């Protein structure tokens, strides 16, 4: 097996046994990066210089058997909406083209404690708004499985980087599927933890009540290792919660529900087939699988596209040219702000700010945002009821495999539909994981999504690992290697 295809635990074990030095490994990864970046454009910025030193320091720790943990010396890519002190954080927006963060996100501090190597900052849809990474002000990222296709989004750069092996794993953020959807499109594991278990401090907010940082990895175990490293209560995030895990069955005694509404129209046959494959495998293991219905899931996209834009309309108000970022001069302060925002934001961001501003406006609040909040609450109640019957819910991660670049850019509604299956977990704050299971007719990867109730992350990861093992998806992308 190629060294870069190994799991984090395996690589760490090679480091520990001194069969491989972190610096050698970093150079191998960097060689891949040098080849892939010109084709894939997963990274907006690479931290090569400083990483060479960091890798050598890691070598020294392993030589003295004083390594700092499983992630010591492991090259991890970071989505460019997570702040690293002293580096640019652009959110793939012209608005923040020159913005350098003066502080670290909490997740970065946590990874730093293990001296994880940050390969660089990865491309995303501007301010994490999008499902294809086409909304970046800094160019497209391509899907390593088929470079004509999008890698998904908004964490498309992070997913493409792991798929092209320019990093071993990556951090993304997931507001409506932005980790799971690109992971599925790139044949990877994408994991959105329970809302509140990973601090959002230092993550540039899109929609605060939905945003959650999580890993994109090749293996479920890698996702577990990253999750365990970044999670935990953070006094800097008032929505952060103490991670008191609830145990649920994660072996063949588990009870699984297939969400009826996510196996109907709008879902491709390829995507359904993957779910059916997993159902059969689970049944063969003796797992009880039943069909369940969550009628409100059909409203998830409508709810989401009121709540997320409403929150973003306020969250993005701070980008005004006054204190940092882009400034376009004007005759008065207000003219300067208006010109800056007109120039700095791309069209999808503007669309959502407008949508959200409208939904919150006097006279429309009750009909739109207010109603969406109520529907969200009802949907959560529906989930709570279902979790009295089953331990896990499965569905496709995406309605289809990766689509071609440009295919959906002119039709935002169609683009929004690609998050149909992933949005409910964000609205309900549930842990949710996408596991790669197979390829479509076009030889593009597909994933199956598993959800469970809040704070059962450990069990969910165990159960996902069971699926991963039984499915044994071993394909890897080669399209980008020309």
């Amino acid at each position, binding site marked *: 097996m190629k060294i870069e295809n190994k799991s984090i635990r395996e690589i760490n074990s090679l480091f520990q046994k001194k069969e491989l030095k972190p610096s050698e490994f970093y150079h191998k990864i960097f060689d891949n990066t040098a080849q892939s970046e010109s084709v894939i454009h997963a990274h907006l910025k690479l931290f090569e210089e400083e990483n060479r030193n960091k890798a050598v320091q890691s070598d020294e720790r392993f030589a003295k058997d004083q390594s700092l943990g499983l992630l010591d010396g492991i090259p991890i890519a970071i989505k460019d909406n997570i702040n690293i002190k002293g580096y640019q954080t652009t959110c793939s927006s012209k608005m923040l083209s020159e913005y350098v963060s003066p502080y670290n996100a909490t997740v970065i501090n946590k990874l730093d404690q293990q001296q994880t190597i940050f390969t660089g900052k990865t491309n995303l849809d501007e301010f994490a708004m999008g499902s294809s990474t086409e909304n970046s002000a800094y160019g497209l990222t391509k899907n390593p499985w088929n470079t004509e296709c999008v890698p998904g989004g908004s964490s498309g750069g992070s997913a493409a980087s792991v798929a092209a092996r320019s990093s071993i794993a990556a951090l993304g953020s997931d507001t409506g599927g932005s980790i799971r959807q690109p992971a599925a499109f790139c044949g990877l594991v994408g994991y959105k933890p329970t809302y509140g278990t990973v601090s959002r401090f230092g993550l540039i907010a899109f929609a605060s009540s939905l945003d959650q940082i999580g890993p994109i990895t090749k293996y479920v175990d890698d996702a577990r290792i990253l999750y365990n490293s970044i999670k935990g209560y953070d006094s800097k*995030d008032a*929505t952060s919660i103490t991670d008191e895990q609830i145990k649920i069955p994660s072996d063949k005694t588990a009870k699984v529900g297939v969400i009826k509404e996510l196996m109907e129209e709008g879902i491709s046959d390829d995507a359904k087939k993957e779910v059916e494959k997993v159902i059969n495998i689970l049944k063969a293991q003796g797992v009880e699988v039943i069909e369940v219905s969550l009628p409100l899931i059909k409203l998830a996209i409508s709810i989401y596209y009121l709540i997320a834009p409403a929150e973003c309309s306020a969250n993005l108000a701070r980008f*005004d040219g006054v204190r940092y970022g882009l400034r376009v001069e004007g005759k008065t*302060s207000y003219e300067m702000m208006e010109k800056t925002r007109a120039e700095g934001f791309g069209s999808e961001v503007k669309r959502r700010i407008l949508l959200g501003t409208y939904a919150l406006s006097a006279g429309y609040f009750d009909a739109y945002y207010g109603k969406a909040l109520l529907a969200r609450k009802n949907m959560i109640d529906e989930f709570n009821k279902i979790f009295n019957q089953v331990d896990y819910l499965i569905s496709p991660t995406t309605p289809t495999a990766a689509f071609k670049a440009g295919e959906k850019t002119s039709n935002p509604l169609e683009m929004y539909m690609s998050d149909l299956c992933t949005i409910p977990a964000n609205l309900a704050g549930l842990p949710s994981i996408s596991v790669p299971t197979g390829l479509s007719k076009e030889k593009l990867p597909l994933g199956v999504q598993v959800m469970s109730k809040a704070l059962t992350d450990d069990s969910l990861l165990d159960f996902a690992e069971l699926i991963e093992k039984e499915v044994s998806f071993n394909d890897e992308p080669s399209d980008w290697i020309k």
Partner: protein
Amino acid sequence: MNYQPTIGIETHIELKTNSKMFCRCKVVDTDEPNVSLCPTCLGLPGALPVPNKRAIEFITLLALSTNCKITKQGMFHRKNYFYPDLPKNYQISQFDLPVGLDGSLSIVLNEIESEVAIERVHMEEDTGKSTHMGSGRIDSATSTALDFNRSGVPLVEIVTKPVIKSAKEAVAYIEELRQLALDLGISEGKLEKGNLRFDANISVASPDSNVLGTKVEIKNMNSLRSLERAIDYEIERQSKALSNGDVIVQETRHWDEGKEVTKSMRSKEGSADYRYFSDPDLPNMVLDDEFVNEIKAQMPKLPIEKRTELIKTGLTLSEANILSKSDSWIIELFQNVYSSTKNPGTTYNWIMGELQGQIRKLDISKPPYWFKSESLSEIINLIESNKISFSSGKIILASILENDSTPDEIAKQQNLYQENDSDKILEIVKNVITENIKVIERIKNGEDKLIGFMVGQVIKSSGGSINPGIAKELLTKELEE
């Protein structure tokens, strides 16, 4: 026609916490700009707010002491508007679930006690400070300088119902509220520093109307004096307009301190839709019974309680009100002196008049450490029992403020004790009469004003220690015979 004014007041009080409302930056009092900042209060991307518990305790104290109902599941809301000194371009505030609702505050005006109905008490974070260069107005400034030291400082906003009827009542309300904040220990309460800022909503209507007139909001009143003048001006302006058949426009007006007029503000903030929604970065503000009981246990003596105690001594409502808003050493001194003299009015006058006057003259803020309440009690008692004159009392007080001494010592040293023995005084009177036969004849011929001269002669020949009242009485009697 005499129009009836109706006034509602919104007051922002800056809370005396160590750190800001949603970050750990220190609350600083400095003219040096931008020295107490962090990613959160500067609105940097990715920074998050974490509520300051002490500030919420302070706001709850104020809400409880204004008899508000406490909202058990309160919420933080975002109030959206763009302004260069508002870093996030939204302010974290409270909307439909504030800390306190439906309270009241008891005030005193012209010997009458009344209740001002409070609509709500809620949390707000302060903005930064803008200095608009060139014009003082954002729309016409050549540039704007920003200081974010104040950004994120906790404020409590107290909104009255439209129940205040005059400028003087508005002033009495602010004085009461300020005293409450001081006694609760939640604010420095300094108006000149902007610790307390107020806006007034004013409308006028004809007396027989049962609906309120169109309200006009007045901003930028920086002192109690400007509050009073601005309200009076605005009542006058609106009344004249109505008399002339004009319509009052609902608007925000700015008090021009120099010209003493209110001016219409035609800027974008006027017509804003704030698009309030609950802040997704902040969980609910839980003010359950346990929390509220803890706060109640911290409650100090309130101004109204102090006033009630003082009224029991026999002071008038106004005297008790003024005294209750004085420094604690003054109230304590009053209580001590009163317990000895049992004379509230005289005690009040000595403390609030003579003592304060002398202290001001000496340019000190309170009496020297050796000054004892017993000394003042003794001075008052000596005067009341005619042992010294009123003017001697003042002399004794002045001496004690300068040197550690007792009234008795000073009275002896300066020979201030009065001779009250009628026989002794009569003897001196008789001597003076024989020495001034000519003057006596003139008095008998009708020159009454010379009696004063004679009294002076009597006091003079006694060495100044004679009770002038008794001297005059005896002299008149002798002359009649």
